[in-house]
């Protein structure tokens, strides 16, 4: 029982660590990492993709958070 509680707490910690209060940002980062890998494999410059993806996801998430404050 204690072991199960520890495993559950451990998993919940990582879920919160990665996804936080907006899972869409982590999802965009995951997709951007995959796309970056694809570009590197295709020998296309990929350095611009991650920063732009993070910025785009952050702007969208901030806008959604401000809109939620309205409710």
């Amino acid at each position, binding site marked *: 029982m204690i072991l199960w509680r520890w495993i559950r707490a451990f998993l919940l*910690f990582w879920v919160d*660590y*990665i*996804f*936080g*209060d*907006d899972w869409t*940002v*982590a999802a965009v*980062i*995951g997709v951007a*990492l995959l796309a*970056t*890998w694809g570009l*590197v494999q295709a020998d296309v*410059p*990929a*350095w611009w993709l*991650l*920063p732009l993806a*993070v*910025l785009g*996801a*952050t*702007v969208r*998430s*901030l*806008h959604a*958070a*401000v*809109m939620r*404050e*309205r409710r």
Partner: protein
Amino acid sequence: MSTSVLVSTFLATTIEVIEMVAIVVAVGVTRSWRVALLGAAAGLVLLAVVIGVLGTALQGVPLKPVRLVVGALLLAFGSQWLRKGILLVSRDGWATGIGEESVDDDVPPGFDWTGFVLSFKGVSLEGLEVAVIVVAFGAASDAIGSAAIGAAASVIIVGALGLASYRLVARIPRRALQLFVGALLTTFGTFWAGEGLSVDWPGGDLALVWLGAFYVAAALLLVSAVSAWRRGIAPRHEIERPSPAGAGR
């Protein structure tokens, strides 16, 4: 003693040590020095075990997958902090949390595992890179001792500078610090994840500088943008808020 190996190792490891110290200081000033130092100590213990077990075979350790995993995790967490920092600064202003005033809503009352993991990952990844550099430079010239002294000098000097900068960093208001630490973690996360995927960064390691400038500039613009969005929705709040004097009834 090979002076050339000592100096080359010192210079090559300094950038890794700066990254390591920056993360530990960032966790220390924004969350807690206790967890920052415990995380760093745990990272060093893991590192000592890895070095003890692998020895010169460290050269064969594939660093790219480690960089990718650590970078991706740091990117996910750093971007959350950056987002939260922007929201809070736009709401409370830059000067909130001066001195000992606590503004951290996220630090739990018990042991802060998040701060511990951040510090642990930074020290173990960067320490591993330092160890690989020492083995590579030292083994190539048959001067492991000189390489180790060069790396140790780098750790001592940069570590001392990090400790000395603590008081300076602690003077920055906590809200502003949260935002800048968010930008710092996002910068390292982006860089390491990209390195893990073999991204060819313009400027090599200097990409850390322009990535940091990019995220800080974006954060400053977004603080203004979020304030404007809030002002944009304010009239509706005003309409919905009942008049204190019951006017209009």
